[in-house]
C-alpha cells in the first residue's frame, strides 16, 4: 500500500521552500500595498487656497467642495458618508477690535440657536495651535433634520467642533461636524485640517 502513497513527510526541496517563502512574502506585500493604497485613497488630500481670505489648507480629496458662498470660505462634505455628510468648513466673521474669541462663540451660539434644532453647547476650552496661535475650541451638538417636509427622514444627532482664531478684525472659524457615532472616528480629519492650516 505504501508504494501507492508517497511519503508526505519528506523534506521540501530548496526551491520549493523558497517558493513558499516568496509566496507568503508576496501575499504580505500585496496586502500591505492594498491597505496602503486604501489608506492613501481614503486620506488623500488636496490643497485649498483662498488668497482673498488668506487661507491655505489641505482638505480630503474627492469630497464635495463649495467655495463660492458668502457664508464660508470653504466647505467640504463627504458625499459617501451615511447618514450625515461629514463636514469640514472654514469661515470668517468680521469682529470689532475689542472682541475676544469667546465673544465670537457667543455670536455663533445665538445664531445657531435659531437655525439648528436642539442646539446645545457641550464645552468650551482654550488651546494653542501648532504654530503657537491662541484659539478657543467649542464642542456642541444639535439634531439635523431634512428641510424638505415631504421627505420622511429621521433627525440625525450631529456633534460639532469649532476652533476660533482671532486675526486682526476677523475671526476665523474652523468647523467639523459629524454624526455622533462617527464623530471620534473621523475627528482626525479635522485635526489634519488644523495641522495643515496656514493663515497668511
Amino acid at each position, binding site marked *: 500500500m505504501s508504494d501507492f502513497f508517497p511519503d508526505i513527510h519528506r523534506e521540501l526541496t530548496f526551491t520549493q521552500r523558497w517558493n513558499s517563502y516568496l509566496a507568503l512574502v508576496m501575499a504580505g506585500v500585496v496586502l500591505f500595498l492594498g491597505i496602503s493604497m486604501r489608506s492613501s485613497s481614503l486620506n488623500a488630500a488636496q490643497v485649498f487656497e483662498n488668497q482673498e481670505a488668506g487661507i491655505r489648507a489641505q482638505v480630503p480629496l474627492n469630497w464635495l467642495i463649495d467655495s463660492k458662498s458668502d457664508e464660508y470660505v470653504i466647505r467640504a462634505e463627504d458625499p459617501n458618508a451615511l447618514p450625515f455628510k461629514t463636514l469640514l468648513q472654514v469661515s470668517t466673521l468680521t469682529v470689532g477690535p475689542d472682541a475676544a474669541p469667546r465673544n465670537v462663540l457667543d455670536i455663533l451660539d445665538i445664531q445657531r440657536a435659531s437655525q439648528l434644532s436642539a442646539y446645545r453647547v457641550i464645552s468650551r476650552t482654550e488651546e494653542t495651535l501648532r504654530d503657537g496661535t491662541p484659539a478657543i475650541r467649542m464642542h456642541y451638538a444639535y439634531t439635523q433634520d431634512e428641510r424638505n417636509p415631504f421627505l420622511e*427622514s429621521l433627525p440625525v444627532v450631529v456633534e460639532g467642533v469649532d476652533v476660533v482664531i482671532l486675526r486682526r478684525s476677523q475671526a476665523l472659524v474652523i468647523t467639523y461636524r459629524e454624526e455622533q457615532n462617527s464623530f471620534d472616528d473621523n475627528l482626525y480629519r479635522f485635526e489634519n485640517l488644523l495641522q495643515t492650516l496656514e493663515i497668511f
Partner: protein
Amino acid sequence: MCDQHYPLTRRFLACGIAASLLITLGAVVVPLRYGQAQSDPPPVELNEDIIKRATVFVMQTYETEGGPVISCVGSGTLVSANGLILTNAHSALPSDACPSDRITIGITVRLDEPPIPTYTVEVIDYSQGLDLAVLRINGYLDGRIIEPGTLQLPFVELGDSSTVELDNTITVIGYPNIGNEAVTVTRGTVSGFTAEARVGDRAWIRTSATIPGLMSGGGAYNRDGELVGIPTIAPARASGEAVDCRVIQDSNADGRADRNDTCVPVGGFISALRPSRLARGLVRAATLGIRQGQDLTGSTAPLPGGSPDFSRPFFTTRINEAGMPSNVVGGIPAGTTSLYLFFDYDNMVDGMIYELRVAVDNVPDALYSLPPVTWSGGERGLWYIGTTGTPLRNGMYDFRLFIEGRETASARITVGQGPRANPGFSDVVFGLLDENNNLVGTNYVLPEGSGIQARFVYHNMQPGLTWSHIWYFEGEELFRANAPWDGDEQGTRTITAAADFLPGQYRLELYIDGGLSATADFVIAGGAEISRSVIFTDFRFASEAAGGLPVAETVRADFPADIAALYVFFNWRLIAPGTMWTRRWSVDGDVLFEITEPWNAPPEGENYLLNLESLDTLPDATYALEISISNVILEMVSVKVGLGQLPVGAFASAEGIQMTGRITDAETGQGIPGAMFIVLKSEYAIEDFLWTKDQVLGVSLADNEGRFQIPVLLPRGTLDEPILYSVLANAEGYIPITTDGIIITDITESPIEIDVALSHN
C-alpha cells in the same frame, strides 16, 4: 451614457451600469405657467396630487399656561415656492371667536393622511372685506426661523377668474375637517355669479359643489388646474347663532374637555367662491415685498352709536359705471338675466356679517341668495347685491336682508311679467351748465356751488302724469318739487337744483305718481376748475418723511433704485368727513392695493400722507397712485423708481421640472437612507465633475424610504434646443451610478421620477 474613462468612475473603480438607472417619466404636471419666456406652454390638465400638496391646513392657536390651544382651523393654498399662502382673512386674523397669537400651518406629507403641523406663518396683508389674506411661512414649529426665499415648496398660481363661464367644471380642494382627515377633492359646476357693490358683477362665483365649511380658504380650480376661486364662508362669531363646533382639548386646564373649553368652529357649507382676480393684488404685493403703510393723516372713525340697519330696498336691472342704479323696477319680464337689490345701510361696522336670503315662490333659492359674508362697506351709504349671467326663472322673489343673523329689510319682485309700456325715468347723471347752457362735467362728483343740474331719460310719459323730484343732503330732505308732466313721451330732460351745495353726500329721487322711478347719489367736494371738481392738489413724492412731512432733500420726480419707502403728500380742500374715497396703488399698471374708506380728516388741509414700504428695497418700477370718489377718477400721479420698470420675470414663477425618485439597494430593494443624489448644471457632464459645489444644480439626501427630491426645479429647454442634465447617485459601500443626457424640453412633464438601484461594492 456611461463612459468608462471618466475620472469620476475611475475613482470609484467601476462605473455603474446605466441600464440600472431606471428613469420613469411621471405623468404629473406643474399646474400653472405664468411668465414663461420662450414658447407657449403645452396644454395642461389639472393634477390633483400637486394641488393637494400645495394645499395647507391653517390653525389659529393661542398660548395658555397649559400649552397651546387650537381656536380655529381652515384651509389655505401655497401660491409661491417660497411659502406665500393665500387663505381667508378670518382664518388668519384673531377675533373674539378665534383668539390667536400664532398661526400654524399643516402640510400634506402623504396624500392619504391628515396634515402634519410643520410651519409658522406671519400675515403679510389682508382684505377684511374680501375676506382674503396672504401669509408667509417664516419658521418651524420649534422656533427656528426660515429666511425668505429659502423654501422650495409645491405651489399653484392664480388663474384668470374672469374667464370662468357658467357650467364650467370646478374642482375644490381643502381640508374638510378639524385636521383628522386627508385633503379632499370635491367637484361641481359654476352655477352663477353674484354681484356686490364696489367689486362688480363677479364679486362671487357660485357653485353647485358641496363644500364643507372648513374648506373655506382652500382653492377652487378650473380644468387646467388654475386657481380661480377661494371658497369662502362667514367667520365664526363668538356670540353668533348656532355655531357648530368641536371641543378637542382641555383649554382651561380643569382636567376635563367639556363645553367650558375652547371649541373649534366647524360646520356649514360653502356655495360661494371669491374670484382669484380679487387676490391678485395681495399676492403680487407680497411677491414684490411691498406693503401699504398706515394712513397716518386720517383719524380712526368712531364706532357708530346706533343699531346697524338696512333700509329703502329697491330693484334695478342695470348698473352704471359709477355703481349707481340706472333704473328702478317693480317687476321684470321673463328672460331677464340681471337683477340687483339696492339698499341703504347705516351704523354698519366692517367685519359684521350680513346675508341675503332669497325665496322664489316661497322656496329658498341658494343661487340668488348671498350666504353670510363679511361686511366691508363702512358705516353708511348705498349698497347692492345682484345676480348676473343666468336668466331668472319666473316667479315671485322675496328678498330678505340680515345683519348678524337679524332680519333688517325685505323686498319683493315679480319675474315673468309680460312686456309693459310703463312710464319711467332712468339714467340719472349730474353736471353743470356752461355758458351755452350745455350740461358739462357730467358724473357723480361735483364741485361746491349754488346750482346743480340733473339729466335723466324718460319714456312712455303722458301729459298730466304727476312726477316729482326730491333732493337730499346727508340723508335729510333738502327740497322737493311736484308737477304734472308737460313734456314729450320720451327723451331726456334736465332739471336744476338751486341751493348752496356744501361738501357732502347728496341724493336725487325721481317719482312718477308717488312711485320711485329713478335715483342716484352724488358727492359735492372740491372747487370748480373748468366744470371739473378739484379736491386733491400739489402731489409730491419723497423717499423719506419725518413728522408727517417730506424730508425736503428727498422730494423728487424720479427716484434712484434701492429706496426702502415711497411717500406721497398732497393737499386737499372741501371734502366732507365721511365721504367715501378710494385710493389705488399700482406698480407698472398692476393694481396692488385698493382701499375704499370714509374720509376721516378735516375738510381742508395740507400734506396728507400715504406711503408704500418694503421689507428690503422697493423694486425698480413705475408706482402710480389713483384717487377716486364714486368710481370717478379724480387724480392719478406716478413716479419712477430706478429704471421705472419691474425686473423681467419679477412675477415669473419658478418654472421647471421637479426631479424626485428613490435610491434602493439592488439586492434587497430597500431604500438607502442618506444616499446622495446630485444633478449637475447643464453645462457639465459627469466627466467634467470635479466635486465642486458650483457645478451642482441640486443635491438631495434620501429619506428613510430612500426617496429624494431635488430642491430646485430643473430649467426647461425646448424641442429644438433641449437641455441635457447629468446625474449621480452615491452612498457609502455602494458602487455609484452616473448618467448623462437626461433630456428636458418644454413638453417634458413634471415631475420626473428616477429610481436608482445601487449595488454593493
